[in-house]
């Protein structure tokens, strides 16, 4: 404990440490503040859309007598929103990339599901910033700058020989110093997490514990890397460059190579195919034999086959049947698009075994529900709502059931079910990567110790050989050999 306090005092006296901590804390505070504002904005926007929806329902209810269910189905949007988890304020993931707040009506679902989100695209050029970014990308740099040259700095200042003679082993000396930096950073990160927890009213539950565990193990990984490099006892420049290379490989190169390996035009082709095929299906149906198309719909949807025959004049049941048929026509493309997205997730997950930065990123977006997989899950939930809307309205078109204004009280509403994704896999990945690094560290230490022993033996032998014969026996251990051992 005394040693810990001494090392802590030494660290706090370091001006570079204080500057780094200031930058790091400022960045963390900005990330939490901006995340909080973003979260509040999402909640207020959801409330605006919900208020408008209630106003619209009120207007329909204000109408006298029966309503035309065809018009209600055509004009009435039902709001859906992937209610943002407070974690989403801290780990925005792919939140800006997709539309998480859709309004859907009874028309063809896939014509509504892929609406783009409003954003100022220039911001993408400069990059997005959240607490996830601070922890995943900034924290390793801070760790590296503070830790990787612990031994090299002592060598530069000329204190190393003295320190080495005083300590049991260089590894022990290194661990003593690193544990202080580890504790300070962990304390700072935990404090910031507590601030965010209080500001965003995040429940302290299993997810919170999991997040802290991920953070500890991620920190441990970068400390292990720093220790591994520092233990090599190379010069300061080599250490910093080696550490930067590993950081760049984990944070930039591996995600970049993964991205380049998946670059193709398939998604665009599928997206356009969905739009065009659906448009053809819907519009051509006006010029085709309406009865034949309608019969095909009833064949695919037997629950409505007891409906009366199609009148000559326009009828809503034909109109919505054709909307539904246009969804069915593109279902195959939609499935392919979904498979493509799931494949992208799976492949990123496989690459995460190589890159701790990717692994932590995926775990954080899984906890916050802001990844591509969560968005797909949200779309599936909206699709289910759309099916409920069909079940709600169709009896009024197919069986001519009356549609009093009071019926709107039963209009299906969207209830977002937060998905539970496997964030624990990240723990496994990070644990595995850590284990490898720690094994390497242990191996490097063992090799270094063996080399020292070998060198000291050789030194002893050479001293033994150089002394006169009468003083050669018995062999003595030199002070240097003792210090090295």
């Amino acid at each position, binding site marked *: 404990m005394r040693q810990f306090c001494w090392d802590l005092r030494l660290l706090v006296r370091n001006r570079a440490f204080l*500057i780094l901590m200031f*930058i790091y804390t400022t*960045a963390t505070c*900005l990330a939490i503040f*901006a995340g909080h*504002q973003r979260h509040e*904005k999402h909640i207020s*926007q959801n409330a605006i859309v919900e208020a*408008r929806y209630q106003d619209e329902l009120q207007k329909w209810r204000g109408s006298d007598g029966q309503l035309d269910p065809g018009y209600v189905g055509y004009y009435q949007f039902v709001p859906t*929103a992937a209610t943002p988890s407070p974690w989403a304020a801290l780990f925005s*993931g*792919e939140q*800006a*990339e*997709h*539309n998480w*707040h859709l*309004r859907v009506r009874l028309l063809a679902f896939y014509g509504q599901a*892929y*609406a*783009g*989100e*409003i*954003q100022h*695209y*220039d*911001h993408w*050029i*400069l*990059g*997005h*910033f959240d607490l996830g970014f601070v922890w*995943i990308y900034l924290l390793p*740099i801070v760790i590296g*700058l503070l830790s990787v040259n612990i031994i090299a700095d002592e060598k*530069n200042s000329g204190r190393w020989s003295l320190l080495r003679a005083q300590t049991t082993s260089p590894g022990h000396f290194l661990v003593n110093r690193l544990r202080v930096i580890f504790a300070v950073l962990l304390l700072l990160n935990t404090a910031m997490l507590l601030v965010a927890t209080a500001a965003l009213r995040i429940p302290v539950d299993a997810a919170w514990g999991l997040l802290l565990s991920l953070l500890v193990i991620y920190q441990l990984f970068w400390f292990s890397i720093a220790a591994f490099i520092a233990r090599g006892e190379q010069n*300061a*420049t080599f250490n*910093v460059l080696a550490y*930067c290379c590993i950081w760049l490989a984990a*944070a*930039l190169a591996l995600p970049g190579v993964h*991205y*380049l390996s*998946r*670059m*193709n*035009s398939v*998604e*665009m*082709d599928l*997206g356009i195919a969905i*739009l*065009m095929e659906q448009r*053809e299906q819907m*519009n051509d149906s006006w010029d085709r034999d309406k009865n034949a198309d309608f019969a095909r719909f009833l064949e695919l949807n037997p629950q409505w086959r007891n409906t009366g025959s199609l009148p000559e004049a326009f009828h809503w049941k034909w109109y919505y049947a054709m909307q539904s048929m246009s969804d069915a026509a593109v279902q195959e493309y939609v499935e392919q698009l979904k498979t493509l*997205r799931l494949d992208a997730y799976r492949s*990123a997950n496989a690459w995460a075994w190589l890159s701790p930065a990717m692994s932590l*990123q*995926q775990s954080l977006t899984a906890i916050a529900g802001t990844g591509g997989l969560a968005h797909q899950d949200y779309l599936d939930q909206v699709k289910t709502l759309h099916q409920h809307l069909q079940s709600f309205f169709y009896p009024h078109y197919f069986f001519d059931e009356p549609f009093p204004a009071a019926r709107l009280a039963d209009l299906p509403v969207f209830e977002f079910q937060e998905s539970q994704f496997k964030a624990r896999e990240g723990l496994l990945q990070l644990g595995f990567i850590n284990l490898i690094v720690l094994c390497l560290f242990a191996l490097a230490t063992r090799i270094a110790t063996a080399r020292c022993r070998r060198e000291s033996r050789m030194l002893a032998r050479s001293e033994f050989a150089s002394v006169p014969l009468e003083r050669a026996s018995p062999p003595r251990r030199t002070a240097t050999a003792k210090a090295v051992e």
Partner: protein
Amino acid sequence: MVRQILLHELRQQARNKIFLILLPLTLVLAVLIALTHWKQQQSFSQSQQKWQEKNEELWRSQPDRHPHRVAHYGSMVFKPVSPLNFIDAGVNPFVGNALFLEAHRQNSSSIKQFQFGASNLALGYPSLATLILALWPLVLITLAYSTFSGERERGTLKMALALGVPWRAMFFGKAFAYSLISMTLLVILFGGVAFLLLQMAASADLWLRFGALFFLYSIYCGIWVAAVVSVSAISRTNQQSLWSLLCAWLLAVVLIPRFIPTISQTLHPLPDRATFDVALATTLEKLGNSHDPDDPHFSRFREQVLQQYNVSSVEKLPVNWRGLVMAEGERLTSVAFHTHYNELHRQFARQDSLRDKLAWLSPYALVKLLSSRLAGTAAADFYEFERQAETFRYDMIQKLNRHHTHDIRFENDRQQKLDRHALLDFSGFEFQPVSMANNARSGVFVLYLIPWLALMLYLGSRRKLARSVI
């Protein structure tokens, strides 16, 4: 003297193992990234061309249809990818490139070039621009951080100055040496780019953009060279130099550029799509509802039309009343849309204004923004596509509404059809990219770079530094 120092520095680098590994590695990486993007760009353009042709073919092969049916059948428009996209993709990976245009609605699109997955690429999108603007400074730091501080540590700096080598000659000699290394990289890379551009019929505007990009990247590399050599000149030890430069890189390339949009988004928040649509619907309701027979606006409109044609009822009009209502409804939709769309862009402008004020803090942010403008891949190019597509949509729908008004009779309106040959008169959409002249305003960013360059050169070339060594 400057020349001798320059040659000395280059000879030293030629013996430096790190240089011999890093320069070819950077070049190989750059070529791989550029070729992957070029290949993807070609495949994307071909794919887009295929869909464009299919869209036109489908439009031409429509049967006789009611004009309002044609208006809902609509058309697809595509934003052609800029030929310089493979250097700097800008916003292209994040925006929808295909838009479905139809009556009454301004659709949005989320059909992107390819699956993006931004969360894993938070540090940077792999492109030639990222390599030159974000990674090359790191390589420069690695190569040159010890150019002065190393000599100071070894004591050779004092000796050289004692022998009468002027400090400024030494500073500029070293700076020119690293500028030459940077220029070698840029010339090789841009030579490759020029070769690829020659494979296509590149316009004068494109070559102008290409030249401007080369100039911009050269200035940027110049700033980093000056910064690295100056910091090395100021630093007492190698480690201090490396530490300071890495911190500067972290701030200039990683942190400040991300702080800028975060601050501007927090201070000037944008509505999301659903909120925007709700506001649009509310405005439209106030302007007039064409489906409500008692709507005050359309009642007034009916009176005006009856007065204009001097008839007592819509049935007696010489033109189709429903066509007029459609045209007026479309006009109102467009007015409402533009009201909110312009407000949205005013909010963008507020964000941009704040961004421009903060961007001078980081040459990387300035150059990244300007680079995407020059490559024709900035947000402004996408918004221009949206604007042109909306103008095209409005003209197309109003032309169909005129057919509805004049070629379809009021009685039995829905049962009539427009001769398909009338649809052949409709011209296709052709996106006109923002020209270099229109981008000239953003060239003011270059002016922000000059103080950076001057400051860096001043810091390292001060004669006072020589005195501190001796």
